[in-house]
Each structure stands twice: as structure tokens, then as C-alpha cells.
């Protein structure tokens, strides 16, 4: 790899923060040529985006500091180049797209203007730029390119915005495209489409693709080579197959082991009494039907997963059941009483029996309350455990139960990591000894390895305490590991339901089939087989 087109060589970057110097990346080397796809795999905080930001000159210096190393582009060290030389390379030779295209597109300019600017910023004439923009917008699969040019970013869907970002990045036919988590915020079916588009475009233009991701499935699907990063260092490098099957570093092994969707499937115990019986629940917002006569039954001790993409109505279902939103019609019988029509006083009693764990613990825990106050608040509300000493003892017990330490009680949420925070949220839910916990995407904001830990914790609680779960998720792998029954939702309706094994092994509804097909398997061989199968089906 002596004369790669772009080579990062022994790069070390520090961030100077109040808590001291953080070695964001240490001695990182990777390289890429035209036509290749390199995946940089790592969890949050692994430093996987830092070297790419350094390539694009996007680091704020200070607080960042490039300690040592070289970034060679066509053999020339970019770190020694002038600002103007580096600016001229950006977009023209090396382009970049990002996660969350909504915030990465300027909200006050039309997308046409922003795409055209890619060329005008590099001194190309505006009319040529416009023609190329029209051509590319059509190429990335947006309807009516002329109208699209005149629209603003907020007028597109998430997937469309990412396509527009890709069109913008390709304006000057760059040699290398860096994609930083390009599909993370997207639904699985749209993720599959965007990845397919990237692959096609790469084949057409012959560019090199650097894909930064946390998702083993994405790596398996698209990468030729992969480097695995942990705590700022590359711990392993090789082909996806090699890494998946013969990982040598313990971190890589842990990561692969944590990938969801491989455990034994659970089976439902139909003899258990019915806890929650939802009948023809309906909810509309204006003309939009979020829930269309949704019915489901949850048994005691069961874990029922509700699966669907954004806009499927799965979160509305949770909100309506918890009376955060008022249902239009229908009933939800909780131990025989209708939740939907309950008076405020009756509801207060039920509020103790049903608890919720939210998606993002950073937001669901009041930042100004200590862990003790957070957990004890439910007792204040429901006038339980008046004795101070008993409370303290119980908080300590709960913290131990979720894998934290009793002395954590006096700290504040921001002093914990994401996974720990979710454990606090679970301890808070457990404090009221509920019969049902509703989890709304409770692990989707967490890193894969931490996801696995939290799922294991929830499963343990279910077994030991007999708590039932309504588990709302978009990640099929997680669902397969945790749920015993699955309900698939699309556009406010339940399209398929059944035991987990049946849904995964023998899906009947086309949407469920599409969902399962779009779900990326971490095993590159499985993905290759699927691609081959899809190719045969297409041919």
C-alpha cells in the first residue's frame, strides 16, 4: 500500500478538555484507493470519525491538536499544505456526507442552490453546475428534479435528504467519498436503498468510499476492508469475512458476540392470565391516522415486541396506552378496567403498575435531580415507603439490582455513561414494582455491546420478577433476542403477528418480508448469500 491515493499514517490527535487531555486517536493508519470501500468500525467514543475529520480539515484547533502523523493525498502531506490548498481539495477531490442530513443542510437555502454551490465554490460556471445538479438529482432517485431544486431541506424526507447530500458530494466527481454514519438515522428499508445507491454510484464513478459506521451489518454488506477502532486505536484490520470469523482482538470478539439476533428464540406461555387487552384502538391527528383499530393481547410475564419503521404508529400506541395522548376510540383493558376511559384517580393507581423506559436516558432523566431523587420520586407521588432509612436501603437495593453501586445514589445523571443512565431509568421503573414495563426504543440509543447488557438485564428481571414487557423497537435483531411474541406495524395498522420464531423464520406479509430482508446481518457470508439470492430473483 505504498502509493495509496489517500493514506493516513500514524496519526495521533489529542483533545484538550477541562478534565485533561483526551487522546482521541493514537497512531492510526489506514489507506484507500479508487474503487475500494474501507469501513471504519467503532462504537461511540472510539474516535472513528476523528481521522476523517482531520482529512477534511474539519477539526477545531484548539481544542484539538494533531500530535503526530501524516495525511498523504497523492503522496503529498495535507498537514503541511496551506489552508487554501486544503480548501481546494475539499469537495473536489475528497467529498464527505454525514449522519443526520437535516441538520447538515443549510435550512435557509434551497437544496438546488446548495448543490450548485459545490461547483461554484470551486470556480465552475453556474449554468454548467445547474445542469449537472439536475442530472445528479435524477440519478440519486428523486422525482421531478426541477421542482426538487427549488425546495428547501425541510420539505424532504430523511432518506431523500441523504440522497440529496450524496448528489451534492458527487457534483465534482471526487476520487474519494467519506461517509460518516450515512444511514444511522434511517429506517432499515431506506438504509438498504441508500447503501445500494452508494454501491452503484461507486461502481459507476470508480471512487473510493470510506464508510464510518458502528454497524457490523453495514460493514458486512458493503465493505472490502475494515479497520476496527476502540478507544482511539485501531485494534484490528482486515476483510469483513476475516474479521467476523477469525477476530483476534478481544474487543472485536466482544463486539461480534454482542451483535443482536443470534440467541435462542423464546416461546410464549399462552396459559398465563391476560394482563392487557387492547381492542380496536384508534388515534388520528387531523387527517392522519396514526393508529387504525389496533388490537393486541399481552399475557402476564410475556414480552411482546411491537416492530415498525418511523411513522408506523408504534410510539403512538405506547403514548395512547399511557394516556399521554387521548385515543379517539377503542378500549385497553388493564386487569379488566378500561385504561382509556379511566378517571384521573383510578389512573393514578394504574400509573404505579405500568412503568415506562424511554429511548434516550439523557433526556428521560431530569438533569437536575440526583439518582436518589429520581428513583425515590415515585414513592413521593404514590406515598409509599415513608421511612427515610428504608428508602435509602431500597434505593441501594435497586441500584445493585440493575448493576450499579449504592454510592451512585448521590450523583447526577450527567456523571454516568449512556448505558449506566439507562440502568438508572430501569431502576426508577422498578422502584414502583410494576406489572408491566413499556420500553419505547429503550436500547436503540445505546452502543451494541451495551445494548446486549441492557437486554440481558431486562430479560433477567422478567424471569426473576415476572414483569411483562411491551417492547417497542425498530431493530429486528434486538427483538428476536428479547421478545416471545412479535407484532409488526405499518402505517398505523398491525400487518402481522405471531410467535417470534414464526415471524422470523416464516414471515407471510410482504412488508415483514421486506423488513427482514433489509435487516443487515453482521455475517458477511450471510449478506453475500442474500445479495446473490436477490440478484437471482431480480434476473
Amino acid at each position, binding site marked *: 500500500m505504498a502509493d495509496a491515493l489517500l493514506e493516513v499514517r500514524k496519526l495521533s490527535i489529542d483533545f484538550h*478538555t477541562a478534565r485533561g487531555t483526551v487522546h482521541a486517536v493514537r497512531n492510526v493508519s489506514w489507506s484507500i484507493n479508487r474503487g475500494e470501500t474501507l469501513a471504519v468500525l467503532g462504537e461511540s467514543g472510539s474516535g472513528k470519525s476523528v481521522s476523517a475529520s482531520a482529512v477534511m480539515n474539519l477539526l477545531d484547533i484548539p481544542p484539538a491538536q494533531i500530535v503526530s502523523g501524516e495525511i498523504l493525498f497523492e503522496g503529498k502531506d495535507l498537514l503541511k499544505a496551506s489552508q487554501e490548498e486544503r480548501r481546494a481539495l475539499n469537495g473536489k477531490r475528497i467529498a464527505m456526507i454525514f449522519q443526520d442530513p437535516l441538520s447538515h443542510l443549510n435550512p435557509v437555502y434551497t437544496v438546488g442552490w446548495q448543490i450548485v454551490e459545490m461547483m461554484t465554490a470551486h470556480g465552475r460556471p453556474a449554468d454548467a453546475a445547474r445542469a449537472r445538479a439536475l442530472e445528479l438529482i435524477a440519478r440519486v432517485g428523486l422525482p421531478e428534479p426541477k421542482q426538487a431544486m427549488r425546495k428547501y431541506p425541510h420539505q424532504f424526507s430523511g432518506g431523500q435528504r441523504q440522497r440529496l447530500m450524496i448528489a451534492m458530494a458527487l457534483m465534482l466527481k471526487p476520487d474519494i467519498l467519506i461517509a460518516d454514519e450515512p444511514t444511522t438515522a434511517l429506517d432499515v428499508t431506506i438504509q438498504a436503498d441508500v447503501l445500494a445507491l452508494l454501491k452503484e454510484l461507486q461502481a459507476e464513478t470508480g471512487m473510493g468510499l470510506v464508510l464510518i459506521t458502528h454497524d457490523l451489518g453495514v460493514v458486512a454488506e458493503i465493505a472490502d476492508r475494515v479497520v476496527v477502532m476502540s478507544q482511539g486505536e485501531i485494534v484490528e484490520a482486515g476483510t469483513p469475512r476475516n474479521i467476523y470469523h477469525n477476530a483476534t482482538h478481544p474487543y472485536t470478539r466482544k463486539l461480534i458476540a454482542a451483535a443482536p439476533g443470534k440467541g435462542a428464540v423464546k416461546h410464549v406461555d399462552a396459559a398465563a392470565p391476560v394482563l392487557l387487552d387492547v381492542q380496536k384502538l384508534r388515534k388520528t391527528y387531523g387527517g392522519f391516522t396514526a393508529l387504525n383499530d389496533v388490537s393486541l393481547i399481552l399475557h402476564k410475564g410475556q414480552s411482546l415486541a411491537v416492530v415498525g419503521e418511523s411513522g408506523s404508529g408504534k410510539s403512538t400506541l405506547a403514548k395512547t396506552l*399511557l394516556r399521554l395522548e387521548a385515543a379517539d376510540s377503542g378500549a385497553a383493558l388493564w386487569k379488566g378496567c378500561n385504561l382509556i376511559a379511566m378517571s384521573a384517580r383510578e389512573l393514578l393507581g394504574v400509573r404505579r403498575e405500568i412503568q415506562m423506559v424511554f429511548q434516550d436516558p439523557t433526556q428521560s432523566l431530569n438533569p437536575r435531580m440526583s439518582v436518589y431523587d429520581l428513583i425515590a420520586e415515585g414513592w413521593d407521588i404514590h406515598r409509599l415507603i415513608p421511612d427515610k432509612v428504608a428508602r435509602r436501603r431500597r434505593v441501594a437495593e435497586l441500584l445493585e439490582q440493575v448493576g450499579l453501586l449504592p454510592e451512585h445514589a*448521590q450523583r447526577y445523571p450527567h456523571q454516568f455513561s449512556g448505558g449506566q443512565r439507562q440502568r438508572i431509568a430501569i431502576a426508577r421503573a422498578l422502584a414502583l414494582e410494576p406489572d408491566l414495563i413499556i420500553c419505547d426504543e429503550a436500547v436503540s440509543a445505546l452502543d451494541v455491546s451495551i445494548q446486549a447488557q441492557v437486554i440481558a438485564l431486562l430479560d433477567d428481571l422478567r424471569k426473576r420478577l415476572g414483569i411483562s414487557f411491551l417492547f417497542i423497537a425498530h431493530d429486528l435483531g434486538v427483538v428476536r433476542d428479547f421478545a416471545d411474541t412479535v407484532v409488526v406495524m405499518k402505517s398505523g395498522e398491525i400487518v402481522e403477528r405471531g410467535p417470534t420464531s414464526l415471524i422470523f423464520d416464516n414471515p407471510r406479509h410482504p412488508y415483514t418480508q421486506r423488513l427482514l430482508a433489509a435487516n443487515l446481518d453482521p455475517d458477511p457470508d450471510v449478506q453475500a448469500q442474500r445479495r446473490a439470492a436477490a440478484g437471482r430473483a431480480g434476473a
Partner: protein
Amino acid sequence: MTDLSSAKPADIPRSESAALLAMLWRDKLAFVSAVMLLVIVLFAVLGPALLGDAAGAQNLRGRNSPPFDLAHGWAFVLGGDSLGRPMLPRLIVAASSTMGVAAGAVLSALVVGAAFGLVAGYLGKNVSQVIMRLADVIMSFPSLLIAVVVLYVLGPSIPNLVLVLAITRIPIYLRTTCAEVLEVRERMFVQAATVMGASHTRIILRHILPIVAPTLMTIATLDFAFVMLAESSLSFLGIGIQPPNITWGLMVSQGRPYLSSAWWLAFWPGLMIVITALSLNLLSNWMRVALDPAQRWRLEARSTKGGTANG
């Protein structure tokens, strides 16, 4: 980055106020401002009792005596006024009314505005729309002119002055609180509290108010400076504080006829206003960052680079 290995806390837990004080010490400008304000508040509280007599005593030989001349005693170090009263004690005594009026107006506006804003914001979009519009309307009134008219009618007294100033400032707190509450009530932890069965009062007081309070504190600090300037304007026009009460604004007004012969009569009280307002501004800027956990790292990060001027 693994889950449990980082169970050790990142920083040693210490009391919130001690941490804030340490941060204040690091930002030298904000620290000096805080000290300045403390001194002025001490003047305001103790001044009238200690120096009330000295401030009123006339020394005819000290009439319009220039500053930095100790011939008439230490009290005349900043000069004497047109009636031969010493400037320095008068400035210190005037701090009392100046700060008193501003504090009264800011506190009443804060309490009323925040209370209505909390309720309106919590009740949701429609109610707050009405409230916001109402605030807009009051804001679009020519407030200084109305203050002038009202004070003419009601008569210029300290309570009336406080009332007028408070009413013109209520919309500021109302708008801010309302807008913040509208945002905070949608946050996950408020939903989490609802799901747990928390009452509306509990949610407002325990979950929303603590989040909004730092912003209100910051605005109140800034507004204190604004109200002080407004009061001095009214007093300068002769419809604010009336003699024998004195505020810095009134002193500037009283010194105006002597501009060409005794500049210090108008200069010192004006300078006091500038210093106080500047300190409030600086402190408010610091608070905006310090009281916001999301931005606090900016100040904490500063410790590694030494103090810089601004945030």
C-alpha cells in the same frame, strides 16, 4: 467506554455552590463584577444608616469644590455639590434608592411574569399564543412615554415608580418563561414524570421550574441594569425620584446646570451607573454559561488556558 468499568465518577462530587464559586474565581472579570456588586449592595444596605447625616450636611465653603482635594475632609474627596454637600457620602447613600427601586421592580416583574409564564406555557400552545401576543402588544407600547404619563398622573413616588417599571418589564419574563416552558414540557423527563403519576403542580415546580430558573436568573441580572437605567432616565427627567430622596440618575440631573463649571457633579453618579450596569452585564454573561450544564464546559475548559475575557 465499557459500561461498568467507568463506574468511577469522572469528577469528585462537591457541592454545587462551591463548584460555582470556583468557576467564578476562574473568570476574573466576572469575579471582579461580583465583588463590585457586593460592595454596591453593602453601600445600599448600610449607607443611609452610616452616612445619612454626612450626606445631608452642608458645608458652604465646600460648594462645588473640585474632587481629589482633601482640604474639606475625606468626604469631599470626590468634590462637593452646589449646596456644599460632599459627593462621596451622597453617592453611597444614593445607592440605596437606586438599588431599591431596581430590585423592587425586577423582583415583582420576575415573580408575576414567571408565574403567569409557567402556567400559560404548561397549559399549552393556544393559551401561550394569547399570552405571547398580549406581551407583544405591551412591548410595542411606547413604554417610556407611558411611564411619563402615568407618573404625571399618579405623582412621582417610589412605589409608583416601582409599579410602572415593573409593569413595563413583566412581558420580558412572561415571554421567556412561556417559550421555555413550551419547550421543556415536551421533554422526555416531563413525560416520564407524567407516566409515573406526578401531579401538575409537581411537574411545574419540581421538573420545569428548576430547568427554567437559570435562564430567568440570567435575564433578571441583565434586566436589573436595564431597569436601573430606566429609573435614572425618569429621575433625570424629574418625574422619577424626588428630592430629598436621591438616586444616581437624579444626581446627574442636578449636576447638569453646572456642566461647564463643575463637571464632577454629573460625572461621578453617571460613572456609578455605568460601573453597576457593566458589572451586572458581565455577571449575566457569565451566568448564561455557568448555569447551563450544556455550556459549562466552556468555563471549565478555560482553567487549562487561563482566564480569558469573555464567554
